[in-house]
C-alpha cells in the first residue's frame, strides 16, 4: 500500500505541529473548528444532562425527584446552555469555521486572530456559565423575563446574563469573519452564483448574528444594570415597561432560531445533491430563500408575545409576517425533494440525517404556522405544544443537520472514514428516539399541559412516560457517534480526498487538508453541484 504510506507522511493541519501550545495559540481555522467541536460537545452533554433530569422528574405526576425551585433551574439552564453554548455555535463555529475558507478557495478566514479570539470569548463565557451553574444556578427561564429576573428572582441572574453577553461577542466575531471572507476571499472564478449553498446559508446566518446579537447584548446589559442599580427601565412599579424587554429580547431571540436552522439547511443542501447524484433543483431559489429567511426573520419577533398584552393590530401584522416565513422555508423543502426526484439516491448516513431533517423540519415548520395563527396560539401558548414545536426545529432540524454534516465532512476533518453501518444505525436511533420524545408533547400541549411545571395531573402520565422513554433512546443515539468518531480516528479506514464523489472545492484538497488548505490557489471554471460529470466512487455506494 504505497499510497497509504505517502498519505501517512504527508503534512496536514493535524500533524504539522504537536503540543498544547500549537492548539491553544493556533490561528488555523481548521484547528479552531476542532477546539470549538470539543467545547460545544462538552456543553451539549451538560445541557443534555439537564434535559434527562427534567424528563426523569416528569416520569411521575408528583414532584418527587426534585423540588420546584430545582426544576426551575433545570429547565432554565438546559435552555441557556443548549441555545447559547451549543446550538448557536454548533454548525457555524465547527463546520462553518472548517469549511467556509475551503469552500470559497481561501487559505484561511479573513481575520484568523479574531477567529481565535472568538473561541476564547466563548470559553470565558462558558466558564462564567459553569461557575454560575455550580454556585447555585439561575431560575428565570432562558428568556430572562422582567420584572421577575430584575426584581424578584434570588438566583444568579447577573452572572448568567453576563456569560451570555460575552458569548454573544464570540458569535458576532464569527459572523463578521464569515461575511468578510465570503465577500473578499473567494478564489478566482468562484462567482456568487457558483458558491455552495452552505456558504449562502452561512452568509444569511452571519447577517443575523451581526445585526441581532448586539440587541440582546444591550438588553442583557440593561437587565444587569437594572438588577444591580435599580434603573427601573423594565420595572412596572416605577413606570418601566416589561413588554419593552420582551420586544428587545425577541428581536434577537427569534432570529436566533434562524441562526440555528439556516446552517443546518446549508448542510442539507450539500448532502441531498451529493447522494442524489444530481444538481440541486433551483439553485438561485434555494440561495435567495436563505437571505429571505434572514430578512423576514427580523420582522416576526412579536409572535412570541400574542398573549402578553400587545395591541391586537400589531398582533395581526406579526401573525401575517410569520406566515410569510413559511414561503422561503417551503421553497427549500420542495427544492430538496425535487432534487431527489429521479435522482439515484444513496442511503448513506449523511443522507439519512438529511431525510430526518426534511421530515422533522417540515413538522416543526407546519406546527409553527399553528402558533402563528392568533386564535390557536391563545389555546396553546406556554403549553408543551410550543415545546414540541421548537424542539422539532432546534433538535429535529438543527441537531439533525449538525450530525448529518459531521458525518458528511468527517472524512475531510479527520482523514478517516467512520463505520458506515454504525452510522446508519445511530441515525435511525436518533430519529426514533427524537419522535418518541417529542411527538407525545404535541398531544400533551394540545390537551393543555403547561410548560415549566414540575408536577402534572395523573391523566398526562402515559404520554409523559413515552416522552421520557424516548429521551433515553435519543441519548443512546447521541452517544453512539461520539464513540465511533473517536474509534475511527485510530481504526477507521483512511479517507480519500473525495470519498463521496462530491462537488465543491473542499473535496479537491487531500483529507485532512494541509495547513494552508490548497497547494495552489484553485481556479474555478465549473458550476456548483456539477454532478452529471462526477463519477460515484466505490466508497459512496453503500447498502445498495
Amino acid at each position, binding site marked *: 500500500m504505497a499510497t497509504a504510506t505517502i498519505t501517512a507522511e504527508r503534512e496536514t493541519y493535524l500533524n504539522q505541529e504537536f503540543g498544547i501550545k500549537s492548539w491553544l495559540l493556533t490561528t488555523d481555522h481548521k484547528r479552531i473548528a476542532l477546539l470549538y467541536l470539543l467545547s460545544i460537545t462538552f456543553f451539549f452533554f451538560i445541557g443534555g444532562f439537564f434535559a434527562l433530569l427534567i424528563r426523569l422528574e416528569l416520569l411521575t405526576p408528583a414532584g418527587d425527584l426534585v423540588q420546584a425551585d430545582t426544576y426551575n433551574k433545570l429547565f432554565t439552564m438546559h435552555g441557556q446552555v443548549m441555545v447559547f453554548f451549543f446550538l448557536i455555535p454548533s454548525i457555524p463555529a465547527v463546520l462553518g469555521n472548517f469549511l467556509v475558507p475551503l469552500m470559497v478557495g481561501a487559505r484561511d478566514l479573513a481575520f484568523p486572530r479574531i477567529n481565535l479570539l472568538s473561541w476564547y470569548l466563548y470559553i470565558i463565557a462558558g466558564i462564567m456559565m459553569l461557575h454560575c451553574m455550580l454556585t447555585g444556578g439561575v431560575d428565570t427561564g432562558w428568556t430572562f423575563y422582567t420584572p421577575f429576573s430584575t426584581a424578584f428572582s434570588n438566583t444568579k441572574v447577573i452572572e448568567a446574563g453576563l456569560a451570555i453577553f460575552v458569548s454573544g461577542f464570540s458569535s458576532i466575531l464569527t459572523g*463578521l469573519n464569515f*461575511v468578510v471572507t465570503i*465577500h473578499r476571499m473567494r478564489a478566482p472564478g468562484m462567482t456568487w452564483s457558483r458558491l455552495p449553498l452552505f456558504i449562502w446559508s452561512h452568509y444569511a446566518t452571519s447577517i443575523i448574528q451581526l445585526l441581532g446579537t448586539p440587541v440582546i447584548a*444591550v438588553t442583557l446589559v440593561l437587565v444587569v444594570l437594572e438588577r444591580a442599580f*435599580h*434603573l*427601573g*427601565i423594565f420595572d412596572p412599579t416605577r*413606570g418601566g415597561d416589561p413588554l419593552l424587554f420582551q420586544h428587545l429580547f425577541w428581536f434577537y431571540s427569534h432570529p436566533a432560531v434562524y441562526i440555528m436552522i439556516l446552517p443546518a439547511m446549508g448542510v442539507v443542501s450539500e448532502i441531498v445533491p451529493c447522494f442524489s447524484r444530481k444538481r440541486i433543483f433551483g439553485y438561485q431559489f434555494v440561495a435567495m430563500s436563505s437571505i429571505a429567511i434572514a430578512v423576514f426573520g427580523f420582522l416576526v419577533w412579536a409572535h412570541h408575545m400574542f398573549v402578553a398584552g400587545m395591541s391586537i393590530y400589531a398582533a395581526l401584522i406579526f401573525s401575517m409576517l410569520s406566515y410569510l416565513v413559511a414561503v422561503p422555508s417551503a421553497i427549500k423543502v420542495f427544492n430538496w425533494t425535487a432534487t431527489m426526484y429521479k435522482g439515484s439516491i444513496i442511503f448513506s448516513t449523511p443522507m439519512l440525517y438529511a431525510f430526518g431533517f426534511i421530515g422533522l423540519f417540515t413538522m416543526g415548520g407546519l406546527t409553527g404556522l399553528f402558533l402563528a395563527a392568533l386564535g390557536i396560539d391563545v389555546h396553546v401558548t406556554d403549553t408543551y405544544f410550543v415545546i414540541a414545536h421548537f424542539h422539532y426545529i432546534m433538535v429535529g432540524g438543527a441537531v439533525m443537520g449538525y450530525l448529518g454534516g459531521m458525518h458528511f465532512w468527517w472524512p475531510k476533518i479527520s482523514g478517516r472514514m467512520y463505520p458506515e453501518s454504525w452510522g446508519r444505525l445511530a441515525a435511525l436511533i436518533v430519529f426514533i428516539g427524537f419522535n418518541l420524545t417529542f411527538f407525545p408533547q404535541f398531544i400533551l400541549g394540545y390537551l393543555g399541559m403547561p410548560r415549566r411545571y414540575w408536577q402534572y395531573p395523573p391523566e398526562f402520565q402515559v404520554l409523559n412516560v413515552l416522552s421520557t422513554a424516548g429521551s433515553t433512546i435519543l441519548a443512546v443515539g447521541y452517544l453512539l457517534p461520539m464513540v465511533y468518531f473517536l474509534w475511527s480516528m485510530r481504526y477507521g479506514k483512511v479517507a480519500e480526498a473525495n470519498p463521496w464523489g462530491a462537488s465543491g472545492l473542499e473535496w479537491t484538497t487531500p483529507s485532512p487538508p494541509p495547513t494552508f488548505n490548497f497547494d495552489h490557489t484553485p481556479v474555478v471554471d465549473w458550476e456548483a453541484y456539477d454532478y452529471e460529470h462526477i463519477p460515484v466512487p466505490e466508497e459512496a455506494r453503500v447498502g445498495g
Partner: protein
Amino acid sequence: MADSPIAVEQHSPALQHHFADMEQQRQASSLGMWLFLATEVMFFGGMFCAYLIYRYWYFPEFAAASKSLDITLGTVNTAVLICSSLTVVMAVRAAQLGKRQAQVIYLALTLILGLAFLGVKAIEWTSKFKGHHVPGASFNFEGTIPSHPDQPVDQRHAQIFFSLYFAMTGMHALHMVIGVGIFSYLLYYAWKGRYTPDYHTPLENSGLYWHFVDIIWIYLFPLLYLIDRKK
C-alpha cells in the same frame, strides 16, 4: 528595485500570509470594520428605542429632567468631540502623505481632546451624584412640569430619564475609553514610524471607530440635553 532579480517577489512586511495582496487585505479590514460598526449601531439602537418610547410616554418629565442638565458643558463637549474627529482625519491624511511628525501631533491632539471629553463628562456625573439624580434608593428630583409650573413631576418617570441618561452616556463613555486605549497604541506605533502611505489601515479603521463614537454623541446631545429648551 529594477536591478534586483527578486524585486517582483517582494511584498510589504505587513501583508499577512492568507491574503493575495495588500489591496485585498485593506479591503477585507475595511469591510470588517464597517460590519462591526453596523453591530454597534444595533447595540445603541436598543437604547435609542427605549429612549423613544419613554420620551413619548413621559414627555413632561423628560423635558423637566433634560432642563436640569448642564447645557454649557454639553455644548463644549460636543465641540470637543467634533474637533477630535477633525484631528483624526488630519492624522490619516498625514499617514497617506507619509508625514510621521504630523501624524504623531494629530494623534496626540485626538487623545487630548478625547480625555478632555471624558473629564467634562466626569464633572457632569459628579454633579448628578451630588444632586441625588442617580437612579436608586436616594434618587430625588425636585422639579415642575415645564408647561404647568404648578405641577410637580412624577419622580419615577424622571428617574427613567436619568436611568437612560446614565446608560446611554455611560455606554458612550465606555466606547470613548476604549477609543483612548486604541489611539494610545496608534500614537506609539506612529511615533515608531509604522504607518506609511502604503500601509495605514489600522489608522483608517480606528478613525472610523472614532467617528462612529462621535456620531453617537451627536445624537445623544440633542436627545438628552435639548428636549423642550425653547423659551
